[in-house]
Protein backbone atom coordinates (compact mmCIF):
# COMPACT_ATOMS: atom_id res chain seq x y z
CA UNK A 1 0.00 0.00 0.00
CA UNK A 2 0.99 3.59 -0.46
CA UNK A 3 0.97 6.22 2.30
CA UNK A 4 -1.53 5.71 5.17
CA UNK A 5 -5.03 7.10 4.90
CA UNK A 6 -5.48 10.10 7.24
CA UNK A 7 -9.21 9.45 7.81
CA UNK A 8 -8.63 5.78 8.62
CA UNK A 9 -9.28 6.01 12.39
CA UNK A 10 -12.39 8.17 12.07
CA UNK A 11 -13.90 5.87 9.43
CA UNK A 12 -13.19 2.77 11.54
CA UNK A 13 -14.83 4.32 14.62
CA UNK A 14 -17.93 5.35 12.65
CA UNK A 15 -18.17 1.89 11.06
CA UNK A 16 -17.96 0.20 14.49
CA UNK A 17 -20.76 2.44 15.79
CA UNK A 18 -22.97 1.46 12.85
CA UNK A 19 -22.00 -2.19 13.35
CA UNK A 20 -23.07 -2.25 17.02
CA UNK A 21 -26.39 -0.67 16.13
CA UNK A 22 -26.78 -3.28 13.39
CA UNK A 23 -26.10 -6.10 15.84
CA UNK A 24 -29.03 -5.00 18.06
CA UNK A 25 -31.15 -4.47 14.96
CA UNK A 26 -30.16 -7.94 13.72
CA UNK A 27 -30.99 -9.53 17.08
CA UNK A 28 -34.50 -8.08 16.99
CA UNK A 29 -34.85 -9.32 13.42
CA UNK A 30 -33.79 -12.84 14.42
CA UNK A 31 -36.25 -13.01 17.31
CA UNK A 32 -39.12 -11.52 15.26
CA UNK A 33 -38.39 -13.87 12.37
CA UNK A 34 -38.64 -16.95 14.62
CA UNK A 35 -41.77 -15.47 16.22
CA UNK A 36 -43.25 -15.06 12.72
CA UNK A 37 -42.92 -18.79 12.10
CA UNK A 38 -39.69 -18.97 10.09
CA UNK A 39 -37.09 -21.58 11.02
CA UNK A 40 -33.55 -20.73 12.11
CA UNK A 41 -32.04 -21.72 8.71
CA UNK A 42 -34.66 -19.61 6.88
CA UNK A 43 -33.90 -16.67 9.18
CA UNK A 44 -30.17 -16.97 8.46
CA UNK A 45 -30.70 -17.29 4.69
CA UNK A 46 -32.53 -13.95 4.84
CA UNK A 47 -29.73 -12.29 6.83
CA UNK A 48 -26.90 -13.82 4.74
CA UNK A 49 -28.40 -13.57 1.24
CA UNK A 50 -31.08 -10.86 1.36
CA UNK A 51 -28.92 -8.73 3.71
CA UNK A 52 -31.04 -5.57 3.71
CA UNK A 53 -32.88 -4.79 6.93
CA UNK A 54 -36.21 -3.24 5.94
CA UNK A 55 -36.88 -5.94 3.31
CA UNK A 56 -36.12 -8.69 5.83
CA UNK A 57 -38.54 -7.22 8.38
CA UNK A 58 -41.18 -6.76 5.68
CA UNK A 59 -40.76 -10.33 4.49
CA UNK A 60 -41.25 -11.92 7.91
CA UNK A 61 -44.04 -9.43 8.75
CA UNK A 62 -46.09 -10.32 5.67
CA UNK A 63 -45.21 -14.03 5.92
CA UNK A 64 -46.59 -14.01 9.48
CA UNK A 65 -49.89 -12.44 8.40
CA UNK A 66 -51.18 -15.79 7.09
CA UNK A 67 -52.11 -16.81 3.59
CA UNK A 68 -49.52 -17.51 0.91
CA UNK A 69 -45.88 -16.79 1.83
CA UNK A 70 -45.42 -15.60 -1.77
CA UNK A 71 -47.25 -12.38 -0.87
CA UNK A 72 -44.13 -11.55 1.18
CA UNK A 73 -41.88 -11.68 -1.92
CA UNK A 74 -43.07 -8.48 -3.69
CA UNK A 75 -43.14 -6.64 -0.35
CA UNK A 76 -39.45 -7.45 0.21
CA UNK A 77 -38.49 -6.68 -3.41
CA UNK A 78 -40.29 -3.32 -3.53
CA UNK A 79 -38.52 -2.22 -0.34
CA UNK A 80 -35.21 -3.54 -1.71
CA UNK A 81 -35.50 -1.46 -4.87
CA UNK A 82 -33.73 1.49 -3.30
CA UNK A 83 -30.50 -0.52 -3.13
CA UNK A 84 -30.47 -0.62 -6.95
CA UNK A 85 -30.36 3.18 -6.95
CA UNK A 86 -27.45 3.22 -4.51
CA UNK A 87 -25.57 1.31 -7.22
CA UNK A 88 -25.16 4.52 -9.23
CA UNK A 89 -22.92 6.42 -6.77
CA UNK A 90 -21.20 3.18 -5.67
CA UNK A 91 -20.27 2.31 -9.28
CA UNK A 92 -18.75 5.78 -9.67
CA UNK A 93 -16.67 5.24 -6.53
CA UNK A 94 -15.56 1.62 -6.97
CA UNK A 95 -15.83 0.95 -10.75
CA UNK A 96 -16.43 -2.77 -10.14
CA UNK A 97 -15.85 -5.03 -13.18
CA UNK A 98 -16.52 -8.72 -13.82
CA UNK A 99 -16.53 -10.90 -10.69
CA UNK A 100 -15.84 -7.87 -8.50
CA UNK A 101 -19.25 -6.62 -9.49
CA UNK A 102 -20.97 -9.78 -8.15
CA UNK A 103 -19.14 -9.40 -4.84
CA UNK A 104 -19.48 -5.63 -4.49
CA UNK A 105 -23.23 -5.66 -5.18
CA UNK A 106 -23.99 -7.68 -2.04
CA UNK A 107 -22.78 -4.84 0.21
CA UNK A 108 -24.68 -1.98 -1.47
CA UNK A 109 -27.13 -0.97 1.28
CA UNK A 110 -28.22 2.18 3.15
CA UNK A 111 -25.33 2.35 5.61
CA UNK A 112 -22.41 1.49 3.28
CA UNK A 113 -23.65 3.98 0.66
CA UNK A 114 -24.07 6.76 3.21
CA UNK A 115 -20.58 6.12 4.65
CA UNK A 116 -18.92 5.93 1.21
CA UNK A 117 -20.43 9.08 -0.28
CA UNK A 118 -19.74 10.97 2.95
CA UNK A 119 -15.94 10.85 2.47
CA UNK A 120 -13.80 13.51 0.82
CA UNK A 121 -11.32 11.51 -1.30
CA UNK A 122 -11.76 8.50 -3.63
CA UNK A 123 -9.45 6.36 -1.46
CA UNK A 124 -11.38 7.24 1.71
CA UNK A 125 -14.67 6.45 -0.06
CA UNK A 126 -13.45 2.99 -1.07
CA UNK A 127 -12.07 2.32 2.40
CA UNK A 128 -15.32 3.48 4.06
CA UNK A 129 -17.47 1.30 1.81
CA UNK A 130 -15.53 -1.90 2.46
CA UNK A 131 -14.89 -1.30 6.17
CA UNK A 132 -18.54 -0.53 6.88
CA UNK A 133 -19.65 -3.41 4.67
CA UNK A 134 -17.47 -6.04 6.35
CA UNK A 135 -18.15 -4.93 9.96
CA UNK A 136 -21.89 -4.51 9.33
CA UNK A 137 -22.21 -7.87 7.57
CA UNK A 138 -20.41 -9.77 10.36
CA UNK A 139 -22.31 -8.16 13.23
CA UNK A 140 -25.65 -8.40 11.40
CA UNK A 141 -25.18 -12.19 11.12
CA UNK A 142 -24.08 -12.50 14.74
CA UNK A 143 -27.06 -10.46 15.95
CA UNK A 144 -29.54 -12.38 13.77
CA UNK A 145 -28.27 -15.73 15.06
CA UNK A 146 -28.38 -14.64 18.72
CA UNK A 147 -31.88 -13.19 18.31
CA UNK A 148 -33.13 -16.30 16.53
CA UNK A 149 -31.77 -18.56 19.31
CA UNK A 150 -33.51 -16.45 21.97
CA UNK A 151 -36.70 -16.52 19.91
CA UNK A 152 -36.62 -20.33 19.88
CA UNK A 153 -36.69 -20.84 23.65
CA UNK A 154 -39.05 -18.01 24.58
CA UNK A 155 -42.69 -17.56 23.53
CA UNK A 156 -42.46 -14.38 21.40
CA UNK A 157 -45.70 -12.79 22.61
CA UNK A 158 -44.76 -13.41 26.28
CA UNK A 159 -41.79 -11.07 25.93
CA UNK A 160 -43.86 -8.56 23.95
CA UNK A 161 -42.22 -9.29 20.59
CA UNK A 162 -45.49 -8.65 18.74
CA UNK A 163 -44.93 -4.96 19.56
CA UNK A 164 -41.35 -5.10 18.25
CA UNK A 165 -42.06 -5.17 14.51
CA UNK A 166 -44.36 -2.11 14.37
CA UNK A 167 -42.06 -0.23 16.77
CA UNK A 168 -39.03 -1.07 14.61
CA UNK A 169 -40.82 0.03 11.43
CA UNK A 170 -41.82 3.32 13.09
CA UNK A 171 -38.21 3.88 14.17
CA UNK A 172 -37.06 3.25 10.58
CA UNK A 173 -39.77 5.58 9.32
CA UNK A 174 -39.17 8.36 11.84
CA UNK A 175 -36.44 10.38 10.04
CA UNK A 176 -38.53 10.35 6.85
CA UNK A 177 -41.48 11.99 8.63
CA UNK A 178 -39.61 15.26 9.16
CA UNK A 179 -40.83 16.47 5.78
CA UNK A 180 -44.48 17.23 5.15
CA UNK A 181 -44.38 15.15 1.99
CA UNK A 182 -43.11 12.20 4.00
CA UNK A 183 -45.94 12.55 6.52
CA UNK A 184 -48.58 12.62 3.77
CA UNK A 185 -47.10 9.56 2.11
CA UNK A 186 -46.97 7.67 5.40
CA UNK A 187 -50.60 8.54 6.11
CA UNK A 188 -51.60 7.54 2.58
CA UNK A 189 -49.76 4.23 2.75
CA UNK A 190 -51.30 3.36 6.12
CA UNK A 191 -54.80 4.41 4.96
CA UNK A 192 -54.65 2.25 1.82
CA UNK A 193 -53.46 -0.74 3.84
CA UNK A 194 -56.13 -0.25 6.52
CA UNK A 195 -58.92 0.09 3.96
CA UNK A 196 -57.89 -3.17 2.26
CA UNK A 197 -57.55 -5.33 5.42
CA UNK A 198 -61.13 -6.71 5.36
CA UNK A 199 -61.37 -7.11 1.56
CA UNK A 200 -57.94 -8.16 0.21
CA UNK A 201 -55.94 -11.40 0.73
CA UNK A 202 -53.08 -11.29 3.30
CA UNK A 203 -50.03 -9.36 2.09
CA UNK A 204 -51.94 -7.37 -0.54
CA UNK A 205 -52.65 -4.33 1.73
CA UNK A 206 -48.88 -3.79 2.15
CA UNK A 207 -48.10 -4.29 -1.55
CA UNK A 208 -50.96 -1.96 -2.56
CA UNK A 209 -49.46 0.84 -0.47
CA UNK A 210 -46.61 0.97 -3.01
CA UNK A 211 -49.18 2.57 -5.33
CA UNK A 212 -49.25 5.60 -3.03
CA UNK A 213 -45.50 6.06 -3.57
CA UNK A 214 -45.94 5.62 -7.33
CA UNK A 215 -48.63 8.32 -7.49
CA UNK A 216 -46.70 10.60 -5.12
CA UNK A 217 -43.49 10.19 -7.12
CA UNK A 218 -45.02 10.83 -10.53
CA UNK A 219 -47.05 13.89 -9.48
CA UNK A 220 -45.23 17.19 -9.90
CA UNK A 221 -43.61 18.25 -6.64
CA UNK A 222 -42.54 21.59 -5.25
CA UNK A 223 -39.72 19.89 -3.39
CA UNK A 224 -36.65 19.13 -5.51
CA UNK A 225 -35.36 15.56 -5.75
CA UNK A 226 -32.03 16.62 -4.27
CA UNK A 227 -33.80 17.79 -1.11
CA UNK A 228 -35.16 14.29 -0.60
CA UNK A 229 -31.70 12.75 -0.41
CA UNK A 230 -31.39 13.25 3.35
CA UNK A 231 -34.70 11.51 4.06
CA UNK A 232 -33.45 8.09 3.06
CA UNK A 233 -33.69 5.37 5.70
CA UNK A 234 -30.64 4.20 7.54
Amino acid at each position, binding site marked *: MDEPLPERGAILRAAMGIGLYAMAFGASFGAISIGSGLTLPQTMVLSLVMFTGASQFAFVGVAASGGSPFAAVPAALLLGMRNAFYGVPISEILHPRGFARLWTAHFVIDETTAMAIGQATPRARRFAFWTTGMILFSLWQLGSLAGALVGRVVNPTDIGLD*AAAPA*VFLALLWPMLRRREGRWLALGGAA*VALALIPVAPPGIPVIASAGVALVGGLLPSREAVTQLQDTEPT
Partner: protein
Amino acid sequence: MTPLWLATIVAAVGCYLLKLAGVSLPESILNHPKVQRVAQLLPIAMLSALVAVELFDGGGRYSVDWRTLAGVVAGVIALLLRRGFLVVFLVAIGVTALLRLIT
Protein backbone atom coordinates in the same frame (compact mmCIF):
# COMPACT_ATOMS: atom_id res chain seq x y z
CA MET B 1 -39.31 -27.73 -0.50
CA THR B 2 -42.05 -25.94 1.47
CA PRO B 3 -43.69 -22.80 0.01
CA LEU B 4 -42.11 -20.74 2.81
CA TRP B 5 -38.62 -22.00 1.89
CA LEU B 6 -39.23 -21.26 -1.78
CA ALA B 7 -40.56 -17.76 -1.00
CA THR B 8 -37.55 -17.12 1.29
CA ILE B 9 -35.04 -18.06 -1.42
CA VAL B 10 -36.85 -16.18 -4.21
CA ALA B 11 -37.11 -13.00 -2.11
CA ALA B 12 -33.49 -13.23 -0.88
CA VAL B 13 -32.01 -13.85 -4.32
CA GLY B 14 -34.33 -11.20 -5.80
CA CYS B 15 -33.09 -8.57 -3.36
CA TYR B 16 -29.49 -9.48 -4.27
CA LEU B 17 -30.29 -9.20 -7.99
CA LEU B 18 -31.71 -5.69 -7.38
CA LYS B 19 -28.37 -4.68 -5.85
CA LEU B 20 -26.52 -6.30 -8.76
CA ALA B 21 -28.72 -4.45 -11.26
CA GLY B 22 -27.74 -1.19 -9.55
CA VAL B 23 -24.02 -1.69 -10.19
CA SER B 24 -24.59 -3.19 -13.68
CA LEU B 25 -27.38 -1.25 -15.43
CA PRO B 26 -26.53 1.78 -17.56
CA GLU B 27 -26.61 4.87 -15.36
CA SER B 28 -29.14 6.67 -17.57
CA ILE B 29 -31.97 4.34 -16.48
CA LEU B 30 -31.48 4.68 -12.73
CA ASN B 31 -30.64 8.38 -12.89
CA HIS B 32 -34.05 9.37 -14.23
CA PRO B 33 -35.51 11.87 -11.68
CA LYS B 34 -39.03 10.40 -11.63
CA VAL B 35 -37.70 6.87 -11.18
CA GLN B 36 -35.44 8.03 -8.34
CA ARG B 37 -38.29 9.84 -6.62
CA VAL B 38 -40.57 6.81 -6.65
CA ALA B 39 -37.72 4.69 -5.26
CA GLN B 40 -37.21 7.15 -2.42
CA LEU B 41 -40.91 7.31 -1.57
CA LEU B 42 -41.56 3.55 -1.65
CA PRO B 43 -40.14 2.78 1.82
CA ILE B 44 -42.20 5.58 3.41
CA ALA B 45 -45.56 4.33 2.13
CA MET B 46 -44.73 0.66 2.67
CA LEU B 47 -43.25 0.87 6.16
CA SER B 48 -46.31 2.78 7.41
CA ALA B 49 -48.58 0.23 5.73
CA LEU B 50 -46.67 -2.50 7.58
CA VAL B 51 -47.24 -0.70 10.89
CA ALA B 52 -50.99 -0.41 10.19
CA VAL B 53 -51.27 -4.09 9.25
CA GLU B 54 -49.22 -5.31 12.24
CA LEU B 55 -51.43 -3.36 14.63
CA PHE B 56 -54.93 -3.70 13.17
CA ASP B 57 -55.09 -6.85 11.02
CA GLY B 58 -56.67 -9.79 12.82
CA GLY B 59 -56.62 -12.08 9.78
CA GLY B 60 -58.81 -10.35 7.21
CA ARG B 61 -60.81 -8.36 9.77
CA TYR B 62 -60.06 -5.42 12.05
CA SER B 63 -58.80 -6.33 15.49
CA VAL B 64 -56.40 -4.73 17.92
CA ASP B 65 -54.62 -6.02 21.01
CA TRP B 66 -54.49 -2.94 23.23
CA ARG B 67 -51.37 -4.28 25.02
CA THR B 68 -49.46 -4.35 21.73
CA LEU B 69 -50.83 -0.92 20.84
CA ALA B 70 -49.79 0.47 24.24
CA GLY B 71 -46.27 -0.89 23.74
CA VAL B 72 -45.96 0.72 20.31
CA VAL B 73 -47.31 4.04 21.66
CA ALA B 74 -44.63 3.84 24.38
CA GLY B 75 -42.09 3.28 21.59
CA VAL B 76 -43.36 6.39 19.81
CA ILE B 77 -42.92 8.39 23.02
CA ALA B 78 -39.32 7.14 23.14
CA LEU B 79 -38.90 8.31 19.52
CA LEU B 80 -40.32 11.74 20.43
CA LEU B 81 -37.74 11.88 23.24
CA ARG B 82 -35.09 11.27 20.53
CA ARG B 83 -34.08 7.84 21.81
CA GLY B 84 -32.22 5.47 19.53
CA PHE B 85 -33.50 2.31 17.90
CA LEU B 86 -32.42 0.03 20.75
CA VAL B 87 -34.31 2.02 23.42
CA VAL B 88 -37.44 2.22 21.25
CA PHE B 89 -37.33 -1.53 20.74
CA LEU B 90 -36.83 -2.33 24.44
CA VAL B 91 -39.52 0.12 25.61
CA ALA B 92 -42.09 -1.27 23.15
CA ILE B 93 -41.55 -4.94 24.00
CA GLY B 94 -41.08 -4.18 27.73
CA VAL B 95 -44.40 -2.32 28.07
CA THR B 96 -46.27 -4.98 26.07
CA ALA B 97 -44.70 -7.85 28.05
CA LEU B 98 -45.49 -6.14 31.36
CA LEU B 99 -49.12 -5.46 30.43
CA ARG B 100 -49.52 -9.06 29.30
CA LEU B 101 -48.09 -10.29 32.58
CA ILE B 102 -50.43 -8.26 34.80
CA THR B 103 -53.65 -8.54 32.80
